[in-house]
């Protein structure tokens, strides 16, 4: 599959790769330059492969209260958004997502491309006829993420909108035909813009004109990793709970009578205490990659995401290790063990190194 911006990417010399069945830009020349552009100025990502799904109807809130680990009641005004996860009965993570309240009885959730199809089947099987809620996958909507310290100013110029001062983090608004959420996946300030296929190309051109740097999935991955943000399929999976994915904070136990899917299993795990945790590793003697073995003083673990951090100039990773592990660790990089250090993510905050 191709996004409506496919030709624009090719024109800019993008190296296109397959991602979950979509032809997506990996980079437009230098992934590292793209990464820095987002940390220092503003970059944009075509993430139209992600799938918005609208939930509309009298029972849409009740349905989401069943499907999601977070209490949707907390979205107490139109436009409010929350990051959360959708769990299976065992408390494993099916997907992570951002859910927006559009209106009373009307919500929009944005799912990952790789899991969207399975997510939809799951949602439909749980919704059945018990709920008065229509579930509409919005294949017609495209998404551009504009991220970086200059993102809001540049996007306002491109959209001919006065400014986004009134748009707080995790809030959304409508600007003409554009749905704009102050959200992202880079650890920088920024917005994500949803629009139809006939608007996205001119929006892309306007953003290029005001100096927003096009960025591919490669930079998106190193940016989210530096920011300590999980990637579904790597750091999260249907056999692992949010409690072992540093996502306890998205699980709302109150109110007690909200019986979301996975609650009972999670509750058991909470009582006995999770065995593992997802944490960070920094290391200078090589580049960590997913799947590498980690040895700590209290047992072994595994790297779930690893790469080179362009901001720090050495390797950073997320790893699942025994819950009590701290301090030094060793990571097996090909044939050799390299010494690393367990640290709490993020690795980079507002463009600056977090751990000395």
């Amino acid at each position, binding site marked *: 599959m191709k996004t409506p911006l496919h030709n624009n990417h090719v024109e800019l010399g993008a190296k296109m790769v397959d991602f979950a069945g979509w032809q997506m830009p*990996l980079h437009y020349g*230098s992934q590292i330059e793209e990464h820095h552009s987002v940390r220092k100025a503003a970059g944009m990502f075509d993430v139209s492969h992600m799938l918005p799904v609208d939930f509309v109807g009298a029972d849409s809130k009740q349905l989401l209260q069943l499907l999601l680990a977070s209490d949707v009641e907390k979205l107490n005004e139109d436009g409010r958004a929350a990051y959360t996860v959708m769990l299976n009965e065992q408390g494993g993570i099916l997907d992570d997502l951002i859910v927006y309240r559009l209106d009373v009885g009307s919500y929009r959730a944005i799912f990952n491309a790789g899991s969207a199809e399975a997510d939809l089947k799951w949602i439909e099987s749980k919704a059945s006829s018990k709920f008065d809620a229509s579930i509409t996958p919005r294949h017609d909507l495209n998404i551009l993420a504009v991220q970086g310290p200059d993102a809001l100013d540049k996007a306002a110029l491109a959209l001919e909108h006065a400014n986004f001062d009134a748009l707080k983090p995790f809030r959304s608004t409508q600007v003409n035909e554009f749905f704009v959420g102050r959200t992202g996946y880079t650890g920088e300030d920024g917005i994500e813009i949803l629009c139809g296929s006939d608007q996205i190309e001119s929006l892309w051109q306007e953003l290029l004109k005001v100096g927003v740097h096009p960025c591919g999935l490669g930079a998106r991955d190193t940016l989210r990793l530096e920011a300590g943000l999980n990637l579904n399929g790597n750091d999260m999976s249907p056999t692992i709970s949010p409690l072992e994915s540093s996502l306890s904070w998205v699980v709302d136990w109150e109110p007690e009578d909200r019986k979301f899917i996975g609650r009972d299993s999670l509750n058991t795990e909470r009582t006995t205490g999770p065995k593992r945790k997802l944490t960070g590793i920094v290391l200078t003697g090589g*580049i960590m990659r997913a799947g590498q073995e980690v040895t700590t003083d209290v047992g072994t673990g595994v790297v779930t995401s690893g790469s080179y951090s362009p901001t720090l100039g050495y390797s950073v990773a997320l790893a699942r290790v025994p819950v009590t592990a701290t301090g030094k660790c060793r990571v097996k990089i*090909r044939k050799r063990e390299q010494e690393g250090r367990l640290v709490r993510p993020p690795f980079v905050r507002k463009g600056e190194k977090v751990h000395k």
Partner: protein
Amino acid sequence: MSDTPSDLRYTKTHEWARLDDGMIVVGISDYAQDALGDVVFIELPVVGDEVNDGEEVAVVESVKAASDIYAPVSGSIATVNELLDEQPELLNSDPYGEGWIFILNPNNSEDHQELLDSHSYDEFCSSEENEH
């Protein structure tokens, strides 16, 4: 289109080799650096090691993946480019110049002649491209 200087020899694993006063200078081709993307870390060979042709001697890590570097001919490692410890990006910006990786003292300097010439290497790269 990648740059493939005609005065060098090449391998199917994308190293280049230049015969220089009886020694063989080794790096990776422009085609290889382009495919790898931004190079961020290099594990250099150990000076003095005896290596056989086709043996893994170094590792080049780009942002996206690790890639092994093989000895193009048999010999011993004479020198390594320590500048790459600090500036691995030289492999991208100047693969045939400052981005050289190591120098081999070959057991037999005629082995160099057995490697691919630039024309055959270009053909090999385009056949590889077509497979993808």
